[in-house]
């Protein structure tokens, strides 16, 4: 099924005509309303009217997460605050979150795109959506929620956590679609099994999973354990939230990017030169219809490639390969973005430890487990075990408060954190994804 036949299957030529028109409108908007963009364009000696074709997009400067942080909280908004109806945020690199805003029309667009995504993933009217993405300032929960309502499906806003209650709901309410992070889906499947609720007592047909990297192997495991077809969804709050791209259940070979609303590019993360279709590099997005928070050539740091081949599902929109990595050191832990520098900022504020640390990420029972090794210093050393344990708990609490993820803190001896060429190895990711 296709939610929006006209736009989703539009011939390339017509689609590109819409893109250039919308791009010009967006450029005018940011040039007039966002000092950051106006300055950047002026520095590059470009005005919106210089951008006459889609190829001209490459002349525009990039926008980075650092730029968003520098304009914290609302300086990237292109509309007056009294037209902003929703604010979301995601974690930033040093503790400041990246704040994004939506007008009523933005929320409506997002809902429509998410409805398209759910449809591509196999959902329709009459389906019951078990939405186990976290509700709150994170875009996952509400993004999927609004899309499901737009589609006319029934949503269970179950959010994350309270796994046993979720299993009871899955068994009794008989939801037909599940949406969550892939690791939580596996966790739910295992909890259900332990409670004696096998796939035969569940009614799921499809699952739509995203917000963290996952592998084909993990997909097969989810499919086997829940007896469903699992689809990959992509999105990020800076660009909109979930529903920027989705796999169609017909082909399940790459995620269709909703090109009538976003222009994707792939660039070499080192030279920033655009790369041709099929080559792997960093994904860059320009939004075409967003009012409150337009982005121009936003560097996602996600590594992927684009495939322009027509798809058997009938959609004309280009497909991106599943994200295979990052061009920075960001980790995604239980759907939460974590930068090593954030952990560092927590440690800097604690006098008793050195900012020598290592993050170790494991996956136990399909859930990400973050442990933080910190070198103990003489200042913080106490001859009482209790004092040291208290210090560990304090660090752990500060990390949880800043990042929203639980971390197990382990004090280690000085100079024991592995260093390579004098530089400490900050991250050890043992997850097989």
């Amino acid at each position, binding site marked *: 099924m296709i939610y929006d036949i006209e736009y989703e299957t539009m011939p390339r030529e017509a689609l590109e005509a819409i893109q250039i028109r919308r791009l010009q409108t967006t450029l005018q908007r940011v040039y007039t309303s966002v000092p950051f963009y106006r300055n950047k364009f002026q520095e590059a000696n470009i005005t919106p009217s210089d951008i006459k074709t889609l190829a001209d997009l490459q002349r525009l400067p990039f926008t980075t997460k650092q730029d968003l942080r520098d304009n914290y909280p609302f300086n990237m908004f292109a509309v007056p605050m009294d037209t902003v109806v929703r604010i979301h945020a995601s974690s930033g690199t040093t503790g400041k979150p990246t704040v994004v805003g939506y007008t009523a029309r933005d929320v409506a667009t997002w809902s429509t795109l998410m409805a398209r995504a759910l449809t591509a993933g196999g959902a329709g009217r009459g389906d019951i959506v078990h939405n186990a993405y976290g509700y709150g300032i994170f875009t996952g929960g509400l993004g999927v929620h609004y899309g499901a309502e737009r589609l006319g499906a029934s949503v269970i806003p179950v959010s994350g956590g309270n796994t046993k209650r979720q299993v009871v709901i899955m068994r009794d309410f008989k939801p037909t679609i599940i949406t969550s992070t892939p690791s939580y889906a596996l966790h739910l499947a295992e909890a259900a099994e332990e409670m004696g609720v096998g796939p035969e007592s569940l009614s799921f047909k499809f699952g739509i999973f995203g917000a963290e990297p996952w592998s084909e192997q993990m997909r097969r495991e989810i499919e086997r354990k829940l007896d469903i077809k699992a689809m990959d969804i992509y999105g990020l709050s800076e660009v909109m939230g979930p529903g920027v791209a989705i796999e169609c259940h017909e082909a399940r070979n790459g995620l269709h990017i909703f090109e009538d609303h976003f222009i994707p590019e792939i660039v070499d993360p080192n030279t920033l030169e655009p790369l041709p279709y099929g080559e792997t590099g960093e994904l860059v997005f320009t939004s075409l219809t967003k009012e409150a928070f337009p982005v121009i050539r936003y560097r996602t740091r996600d590594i992927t490639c684009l495939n322009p081949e027509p798809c058997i599902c009938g959609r004309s929109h280009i497909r991106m390969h599943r994200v295979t990595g990052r061009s920075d050191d960001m980790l995604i832990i239980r759907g939460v973005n974590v930068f090593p520098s954030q952990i560092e900022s927590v440690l800097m504020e604690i006098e008793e430890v050195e900012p020598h640390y290592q993050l170790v990420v494991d996956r136990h029972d399909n859930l990400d487990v973050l442990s933080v090794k910190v070198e103990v210093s003489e200042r913080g*050393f106490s*001859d009482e075990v209790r004092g040291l344990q208290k210090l560990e708990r304090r660090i752990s609490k500060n990390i949880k408060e800043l990042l929203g993820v639980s971390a197990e803190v382990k004090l280690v*001896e*000085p100079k024991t954190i592995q260093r390579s060429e004098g530089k400490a190895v900050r991250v050890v990711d043992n997850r097989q994804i």
Partner: protein
Amino acid sequence: MQQVEQISVFLENKSGRLSEVTAILSEAKVNIRALALADTSDFGVLRLIVDDTEKARKALKNNGFTVGKTNVVAVAVADRPGGLHEILMLLHSAKINVEYMYAFVRSSGDSAVMIFRFEKNQEAIELIQANGIRIIDGDQLYAL
């Protein structure tokens, strides 16, 4: 000096770490007079009383260990049933908490020697002495 200097060393729970400490001290010709190990699942704190605190501290620090220095109190405990109990009751009634304690390897005359770390070392010393119990000072102890 009535209190006794104790050094403490942070140790990860890894095999061989303790013997590295003893090797360093042996090489530095430092004699261990008393020791106790407190541990959790991932780390431990080794507490030591040695004949030359400063030498031991330097040697361990030069080998990359985190070393702390704490003052503790050595108390001569009557070597008979109830000897330790009397002291603990005394402290309890004066509301002085014992952070930790361990036994000294050697005895002193007809008394056993216990090492205490109190919440308030000085108060504890005054209380114990006022009750006719002997405190063994640093110089005496290192030489025992």
